[in-house]
């Protein structure tokens, strides 16, 4: 092999793996992303890609080359985690797990949809359930439905053990979930304010 070729390969690999996103993949033990040959089997197997703009191959490529636009794009939230890409990848890359990790990085950077934030913060963190039944008014019919099947109005889960909700919250605080959500909310608010400022300046400019 000529020196030039060797240099070329080294340079590409080094460049490709020195980005913030790819470094986070490596730190999380997902260095297998390097094995991606961009073949598109993932995209070809993707039921979401058949109806949305989400392209698995493209998301993985952007993650590998450090194109951070992938983080703010809603596309990565269109993956239904069906795991076909993971199963069929000819390079044995755990593709779905990569997408999940990519979403983790997006949330860290404050890119989380309002509906997902509400679900995480106001529902899961607050009640311990992702789909609760304990709201005095809004969930009345669900408790009644339980009773019509001879079940207690609330299940023997966190719903029946308030101390268990606290226990989950302690764990979520300790592991950094609360701080992550609070920081995401701050980053989101900051971006929103900046966007509004720019829009306002633009309108004023147009008035002149």
């Amino acid at each position, binding site marked *: 092999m000529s020196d030039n070729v060797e240099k070329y390969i080294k340079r590409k690999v080094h460049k490709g793996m020195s980005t913030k996103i790819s470094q986070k993949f490596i730190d999380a033990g997902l260095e297998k992303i390097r094995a991606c040959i961009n073949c598109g089997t993932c995209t070809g197997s993707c*039921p979401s890609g058949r109806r949305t703009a989400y392209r698995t191959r493209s998301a993985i490529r952007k993650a590998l080359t450090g194109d951070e636009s992938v983080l703010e794009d809603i596309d990565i939230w269109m993956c239904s985690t069906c795991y076909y890409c993971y199963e069929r990848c000819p390079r044995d890359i755990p593709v779905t797990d990569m997408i999940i990790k990519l979403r983790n990085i997006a949330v860290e950077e404050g890119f989380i949809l309002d509906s997902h934030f509400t679900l995480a913060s106001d529902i899961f963190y607050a009640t311990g359930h992702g789909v609760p039944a304990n709201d005095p008014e809004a969930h009345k019919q669900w408790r009644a439905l339980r009773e019509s099947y001879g079940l207690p109005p609330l299940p023997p889960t966190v719903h029946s053990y308030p101390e268990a909700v606290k226990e989950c919250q302690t*764990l979520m605080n300790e*592991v950094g979930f609360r701080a992550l959500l609070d920081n995401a909310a701050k980053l989101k608010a900051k971006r929103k304010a900046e966007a509004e400022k720019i829009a306002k300046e633009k309108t004023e400019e147009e008035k002149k």
Partner: protein
Amino acid sequence: MSEYKWRYAFFLGCVIPNRYPMIERSIRDVFEELGAEILDMPGASCCPAPGVFRAFHIPTWLVIAARNISIAEELGVSPLTGCNGCYGTLRDAWYDLEHNPEEKKHVNELLAKVGRQYKGNFEPKHVVQALYLDMGLDYLKDHIKHKFDDLKVGVHYGCHIVKPSDKRPWHGEYENPQFLDEIVEITGAKSIDYKDKYMCCGAGGAVRTAVKEVAADFTREKLVNMRDAGVDIIINCCPFCHLQLDLGQVEVNNFYKDIIGEPFKIPVIYITQLLGVAMGMDPNRLGLIKNHDLKGVSPFIPIDRFLDIVKEQII
């Protein structure tokens, strides 16, 4: 009372107890009838959902999953879930922790703060796994009282019961599994092949919460393929797929009314509801006959059509 042959800790999750309690009823009753003791898991939480909360923060997902598994460990049995999402979480977390001693140590440091410990000595199981692998088809067959020879079923597996296949008990099979079809067919019903049978319902991975129309478009495709194949009912083994195929069917009829032709009205039934009625249990109790006048509750697609087809066999 006779001795139980099996014991499980019933991990309820969220959608089963809080939106489809007839599924909870049917699992409890069918397992009792089959000689399996179902223990409650006091204070269990959301699994947490593998495509949603894991996608927000993997460490949170892992520690809460480990806490849930530890509750079953205290009872000295495997956690049993009727939900593919919960199965995905409990099983993946268990697999990941058993293959990563450092991670396990870290999770236990966190759990120690609330006085808990994760050991990993009990394999998380799915209801269908318990039926098929622990009990077996021959054992189940002995409990069948009614045969539904005229019933054509569209079987929907969902994703996380088979995938990721390296963390599942089906010997790597994910393209064409048959275990759920085989359980369905011991009731005499015929499992009808339909296009893209193993495709996702569309709800998972936080997609339903993000954009309902996208989730419903997956569902539309599945429903079109099932209708083309002539299925009478849908049988599934996951309450989130169940919700997406039931409530989502109403959404499909609404969002996509211009392209689907006739609105869909295919009854959606959970595997233990079907098994229970075939085992001679009361269809009222299994949630197959509406026995209340509550408004705005599940099921959203009427299931009368199912009973019309099988009524002669169960009278």
